């Protein structure tokens, strides 16, 4: 189970982000078997923080936006804008979400949120929320 893999790695040293990266990448890669998991993994953020912090951010997000405390709603919001004519697979979804995450930060989109001090794209914050709910 992915959760078991996460919990088995709880000993990392918090101050070493390089440690995070080296431990998380195998976890991240193991999740790329299924497009569903692409929705719950904020790809960029997962390379700089550990799973428990992703969950904490997610929980904090739904406290701030309780109307989005619904995994089905969150999934819809996360993939909103995905081209209907394109078949969704894990690779295409990952590429779409990476770009959407970057676009969220622009002034025109105005979809930046600050959660527990993290300046985040709303899309990645929702992914954290979805992760927190499905776990």
């Amino acid at each position, binding site marked *: 189970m992915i959760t078991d893999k996460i919990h088995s790695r709880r000993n990392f040293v918090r101050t070493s982000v390089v440690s995070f990266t080296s431990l998380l990448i195998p976890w991240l890669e193991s999740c790329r078997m299924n497009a569903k998991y692409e929705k719950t993994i904020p790809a960029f953020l997962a390379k*700089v923080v550990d799973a428990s912090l992703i969950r904490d951010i997610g929980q904090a997000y739904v406290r701030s936006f309780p109307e989005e405390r619904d995994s089905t709603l969150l999934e819809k919001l996360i993939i909103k804008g995905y081209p209907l004519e394109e078949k969704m697979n894990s690779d295409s979804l990952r590429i779409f979400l990476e770009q959407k995450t970057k676009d969220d930060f622009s002034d025109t989109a105005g979809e930046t949120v600050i959660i527990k001090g993290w300046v985040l794209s709303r899309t990645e914050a929702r992914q954290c929320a979805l992760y927190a709910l499905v776990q």
Partner: protein
Amino acid sequence: MHIDARQLDNGSLIEGDICIVGAGAAGISMALQFNGAGQKVILLEGGGFDYEEQMQDLYAGTSSGQRYFPLRSIRLHYFGGTTGHWAGFCAPFDDIDFSERAWIPHSGWPIGKADLDPYYAKAHEILELGPYEYREEYWKPRMKGWNPLPFDRKVVWNKLWQFSPPTRFGKKYRDPIVQSKNIHLYTYAQVINIHSDRSGKHIDSVNIKNHAGKTHTVRAKKFILAGCAIQNARLLLASDHSSPKGLGNENDLVGRYFMEHIEMKSAEFFLIKPDDLYMYMWNFGTKVRSELAIAPDQQKKLSILNGTSSLSPLESAKKQKAFIDNWEDASGNGMAKEMRELDVPADKDSKRKADQALQKGYASFQLFTRIEQAPNPDSRITLSSEKDELGLRRAHLHWQFSDLEKRSIRSIHSLIGKEAGRSGFARVRLLEYLHDEQDSSWPSFTGGGWHHMGTTRMHSDPKKGVVDAQCKVHGIDNLYIAGSSCFTTAGAPNPTLTLVALSLRLAEHIRQQLV
């Protein structure tokens, strides 16, 4: 020429054309402009040539409001002044720093950056800096390993700093001053009073005193106070024989608008791939480096103060003491020890290790703010009832912020976070004290940069400033003030380059007046 005022007969009369009170960066820079000229310059320094506890005691005072460093430790009381322990950081103010900004009450200088540009260039020579160039496009091709962060420059741009060695004015300029035929340097010549004529519009003389019990009188055609923001205000307020509120203080402005730079850790910056961010790093011998600055249009849009954020590897930044906790021991042993250790040159091995460490690349950095304090009339220097050993009432600092400072720090780092995210380069996490937008409290590590500004601020209107655009005290025809006490706003960068430039401009103005 140098004279030790302790050796003069008591009650001596000293006369000259120009009397400069204070031999720090401002006073020495000004005096040097008259070297070899026709005027006789009297340069008064309260201390000697070296650090002395008894002289430093004269600067002791009290403070209230936001926690501040002990007043005894924040300026140095000997020839060369606080250049005796500055770090050499130099950058010019931005155009916006001089502008009247509708969202910042009491902002707006009566001069602009263009008025200072020629003097900034000259100040570079005095401070032993490179060319007067601060454009990223100038330095990038000249600096190996510079890779700017991929941010939109219309939002977050790279403001550059150059680094003075740092120039210790007391060492570098002692000989030119002492050997000058027309500059008469008096040490142990602490000014304790300024005497105006009966009208209060003209200064006749100043009194100087020392611990040898000698008191002397200095007369000159022009007087310039160059004693730092706290001491300039202190002296004006204490000179109340003919002006009960103090000299130049008809409108109760002397001492008000004390400004610092708020300098403190503010956020963390996490990269997806380790990078040395060499362009942003500072090490032994760094000549130029960048800090992240906020574009003027963004400052206007968000109604925030001007400030920058510097980067340093998080693992080393976490080991550093907060600025406010430095110089905690203002007593003799503490300060003397810190002073002895300051200029001990780093050995080659330490330098090599520091260089290697910077080049290895890091995945996380600390973001450290330096931001202007908004001009606040309630942040001020007043006089306490206690007197120092020479009979001058001591200074009391009440340091107070407005709502703008904390909101601005949060906005600056949110913007940096947005640019980091938009570029796909990094993520930013604000430190806890910035999480709650409604929380106006400050953490214990809130501190300043030892930059003292604004206590005799510049404004064309005497109801809004103590000095005019030429740094002349309103209402007094021959009294001027040099240095950062004239700053109307604090600007984003360290003040030394700007105060030297402003002092050079004043020197030229006085020269023209005396021709």
